[in-house]
């Protein structure tokens, strides 16, 4: 059990690490197109800390990420990311807790539900708005996943550094 100050310090570091990747997204990746899509890091920013911190804490962190995304990104409905990113965090936390220990492999595996959940939610919203485009939306989802997957390596490294900085004994 971490002391309160250590917990605050840890989540501050996670937030700063997340901001670093948000800046990378805004300053660099937004100008890069791979397979017709821009690499989109926000689902990974929400999912990766959850693989280290577990489902409960990860879900809360992902919720904060969702609020941040909804404030800055255009979305088809209000609170789109606030609704879906906590699910992404929960899925990633459960994955690391029950199937694959947190690390590079777990991050790559957690990326799949992260992008699938986001993509499926987009599909549902489009369908609900009367613009069903399941095929095109799933194609974008898969291309987005592939274009962003490689970024899970440096992102995992940074989030892992934060985790080890506080959990020295692990």
């Amino acid at each position, binding site marked *: 059990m971490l002391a309160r100050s250590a917990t605050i310090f840890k989540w501050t570091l996670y937030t700063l690490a997340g901001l670093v990747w948000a800046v990378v997204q805004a300053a660099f990746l937004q100008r890069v197109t791979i397979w017709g899509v821009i690499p989109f890091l926000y689902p990974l920013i929400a999912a990766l800390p959850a693989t280290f911190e577990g489902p409960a804490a990860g879900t809360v962190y992902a919720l904060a990420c969702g609020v941040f995304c909804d404030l*800055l990104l255009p979305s088809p409905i209000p609170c789109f990311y606030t609704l879906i990113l906590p699910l992404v965090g929960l899925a990633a936390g459960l994955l690391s807790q029950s199937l694959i220990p947190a690390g590079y492999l777990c991050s790559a595996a957690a990326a799949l539900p992260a992008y699938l959940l986001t993509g499926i939610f987009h599909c549902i919203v489009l369908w609900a708005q009367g613009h069903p485009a399941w095929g095109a939306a799933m194609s974008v989802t898969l291309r987005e996943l592939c274009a962003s997957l490689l970024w899970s390596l440096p992102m995992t490294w940074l989030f892992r550094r934060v985790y080890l900085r506080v959990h020295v004994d692990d």
Partner: protein
Amino acid sequence: MKDFLKNHGLWILFAGAVIAVALALLSYFSTNASPLVDLANTITSPFRAVCTSVSGWFTDKQNYYEDVTALKAENEALKKQIAEMEATVRQGEAASQENVFLRDLLDLRQQRRDLSDFETATVTERGVTNWTASLTLNKGTAHGVEIGDCVIDGNASLVGRISEVGYNWSTVLTVIDTDTSLGARVYRTKDIGIAGGDFALMGDGKLKLDSLPASCQLLEGDLVVTSGLGGYLPPDLVIGSVSELRADDSDTSNYAILTPAADLNGLTEVCIIKSFEIVS
């Protein structure tokens, strides 16, 4: 010494006079320098050459130093001049680009008296996610921009509508975004339909025109403009042109794929129409 001069003084004087006369005669009849001058210069010539070489070396070094210093200063001045000229060229290019845009806008003002209140804006960001087709502009409520305002380029081609607005920024949903739906009119046939974004077409930068009357006979290349019905948008803004005709899933009606007239990927300057006269 005194005795020597007493005994031989006259001879010495005589010999000196003879030598002087002889030298004078030699100098007079010779075409070269006088023997004494010749002798003196012959002896001093190597020393003079050495002195000249040494002073020449020093002069060379001095000149070299002065030249290098001057060249350095000149180089610095030229570099500065080039930088200034490059900045001027860049500024000129930007001004030229802006000038073209403003000229287009001026033409537009003269052609379209109904579009009364314009605000030019710069595109600061585009396409932040793969799920929306939006642009961020540098004008907001501080400049009188409101949600729903129409955004066009310099050629009166429709770019989109303002969907979100802040103090000094606004977001435009472009015509290809899935949330965009516009009253449209085929310019040639006057048929009315609805132009709107379709997610399957958004990646290709295109939009869909449907809800057309069954009798409508579209041709590829037909121009599609805003209908202006309902007063939400000014009429006759160019949306795009028909690039393809398709039958819908039920095969009972056709719809058209439109290529937007505005270059949505290359836009840097746009114009926000803040108000317009509704023409009945």
